[in-house]
């Protein structure tokens, strides 16, 4: 598979912000599948750190990726969100060359993702603790550094930098298997960037760590960004995505269904709407009928409505009283990234 250098470039398409069909009424706002077009802006194709073009991956009858197109900008942190089984890992593995796409292409600074140049520019932090447990922290870093072609002074310098970056200098001689969960996570990250790549793919790097380690990991990521590293960051923690990512792409059923900044996604999903959450005492059928009548939905016995104006609450509650429902609790909530995520991907369990 060649790079993007010689590719005929389709007309520029704005990525993200077009994932929703705005109907003008908050309650009827729906997602409409993958973002349109999908190829990147023509001017940035050769310079863009990472361009994914119409990527399709099929495993037998299962289509894991159904035509994903994304572009990662220089120094950008792009959050990749999606439910379990949505295609996040397949996408990441396609980028690092562990999955061969059925269709489409991945270009790293214009070069094919499978090229040696791309390997040098890509760093991968897998979700698993992909370490050698019986090697020390330093030996782990040196081993993965050598696998990336480092040697001699360059390797020593890189190991030293990583130990410092991951705050593991004091534990350099400790066996990896003896480290705490947070330290293992940091070592896992350091092993992924030992060759100082220009693009780093991080697959849920904060799984199972305490708040202190998580904060430290955030600082490490911010330090990378300060150096101009471009990052794709997958996570299930929406607050992490909101804190760290310049843009967020939401993937579901193998397609990017929305992308943009958090504010853009919220605005597109909910405009200026807010969410009303109300709980009642009363017959289940009455509550259900009332919720349906007002275009809301019942989630765990809580009725959820999206409203444009807070004065609409009064009308809702009056009608509830008429229906014989006794109000237990009501709250007004400004939508956040999680609201967008659930709104777009639904609440059904995926695994």
């Amino acid at each position, binding site marked *: 598979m060649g790079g993007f250098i010689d590719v005929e470039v389709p007309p520029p398409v704005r990525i993200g912000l077009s994932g929703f069909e705005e109907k003008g009424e908050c309650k009827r706002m729906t997602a409409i599948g993958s973002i349109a077009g999908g190829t990147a802006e023509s001017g940035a194709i050769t310079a863009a750190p990472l361009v994914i073009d119409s990527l399709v991956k099929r495993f037998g009858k299962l289509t894991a990726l159904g035509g994903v197109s994304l572009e990662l900008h220089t120094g950008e942190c792009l959050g990749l969100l999606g439910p379990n089984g949505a295609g996040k890992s397949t996408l990441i593995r396609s980028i*690092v060359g562990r999955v061969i796409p059925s269709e489409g292409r991945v270009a790293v600074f214009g070069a094919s993702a499978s090229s040696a140049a791309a390997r*040098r520019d890509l760093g991968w932090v897998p979700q*698993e603790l992909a370490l050698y*447990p019986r090697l020390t922290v330093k030996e782990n870093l040196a081993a*993965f550094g050598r*696998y*990336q072609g480092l040697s001699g002074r360059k390797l020593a310098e890189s190991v030293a930098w990583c130990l410092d970056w991951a705050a593991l200098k004091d534990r350099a001689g400790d066996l990896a298997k003896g480290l705490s969960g947070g330290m293992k996570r940091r070592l896992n990250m350091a*092993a992924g960037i030992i060759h100082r790549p220009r693009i780093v793919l991080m697959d849920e790097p904060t799984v199972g760590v305490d708040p202190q380690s998580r904060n430290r990991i955030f600082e490490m990521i911010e330090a990378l960004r300060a150096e101009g590293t471009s990052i794709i960051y997958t996570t299930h923690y929406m607050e992490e995505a909101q804190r760290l990512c310049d843009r967020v792409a939401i993937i579901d059923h193998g397609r990017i269904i929305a992308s943009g900044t958090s504010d853009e996604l919220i605005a597109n999903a909910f405009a200026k709407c807010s969410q009303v959450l109300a709980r009642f005492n009363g017959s289940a059928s009455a509550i259900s009928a009332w919720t349906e009548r007002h275009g809301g939905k019942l989630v765990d016995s809580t009725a959820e409505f999206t409203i444009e104006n807070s004065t609409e609450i009064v009308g809702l509650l009056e009608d509830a009283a008429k229906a014989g429902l006794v109000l237990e609790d009501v709250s007004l909530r400004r939508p956040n990234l999680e609201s967008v995520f659930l709104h777009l991907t639904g609440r059904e369990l995926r695994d």
Partner: protein
Amino acid sequence: MIFNIVRTALIALKRDRAALALSFILPIAFFSIFATIFGGAHDSTPKIKVIVVDQDQSRASKELVKGLERESSLILYTRPPAENKNAKPQPDYTAATAEAAVKAGDAPVALIIPQGFGQHPVAFGPDAGGSEIQLLNDQSDMIAPQMVAGLLQKAAMTAMPAAMAEQGMKYTDKYIGGLTEAQRKQMGVNLKELQQLEDERDADRKSEAGGSDSGSGFDGGGIIAVKSRAVVGENKRSPMVSFYAAAIGVMFLLFTASGSAGSLLDEQDSGALDRVLSSRVTMTKLLAGKLTYNTMLAFVQLIVMFLWGWAVFKLDLFSHIPGFVVMGICTAFAVAAFGMLLASLCQTRAQLGALSTLLILIMSSIGGSMFPRYLMPESIQKAGLFTINAWAIDGFTKVFWRDLPVSALWPQVSVLVVVGVALFLIARRAARRWEAT
């Protein structure tokens, strides 16, 4: 509650195919192998290869050879077997080539029937005027010479009636004819001689039983005089040490190699394999690196084992360094490749543990790691040639037992290297499942 615990354990066992295999298949497999080897399931008695050199070519010697040929437990060779059907027949063995063949391990026993044997085929000992048949043997096989010596006497009794009658007449004429006073006197003298001979035999047996086994001596247990001589291993202080160093060594090398190759599965589970393969390391380089490491590990294991044999059991290691290094590296390479293949075929460590235990124990039992192959039926001996153990043990035996030069190791070296390369190539192909999909 006990029932619940039993039920849970049964469900777990049912799901763990590796444990199931170990629980049921392994014992059955071993039972079958041992039953075949020792239980007479097929051809119960292992056939012994015997080289016969008839220097006499008399009626008596020819009858004796025919008698030996009729023995179902012997395979007689008067000339080296042809390599293929169209090959030109080899010349008959001579005393020298027969001895060389025993030294080379082509047969454990050679019989040399000397010129003049037909004149006195039946003789009560070496002083009776008869010619001694020479029995050349390989000390590593302690059973074959005893069997051949016994069957030789049986063949003499049954296969040479004319010679026996002729000799009987001679003895009758010699000892009984006329029964004159002088003859009686003569008979008394001869009987005394025979009694003296009996005493000498008893003395010989006692000294053989009490003294060190020199591997040679007069085998006067029958009517044919046989002089046995060990042509291989006569100077070895600990005959079986080198055999068991190789035999046990190879078996444990196989276990170590498969266990070590299992690191691939550990790395697969931890995700390290994915990470390594996403770097500049290719699958071929990764497997080649693992193969090199496992080969080195196995070779070091062999060095340690043979050094232990040298230090504790007086194994003559330092006189055989070139042969040991050649055989050690080739064996280590083959077992390392075997381990790589198993690891690349298995999905989990548990599978690897079960499969490797099953295969290695079977290979070791029929390949000669548990007991010498010459004790096994011919069919099992042939099956043993499909194992790494058999070729490795044969090679080490050539080095340490037969004192053969490195050049004589070419069959074992060739087989082990070819097997190693083939197993590695299959392992590489099986490892495609770890590559990008």
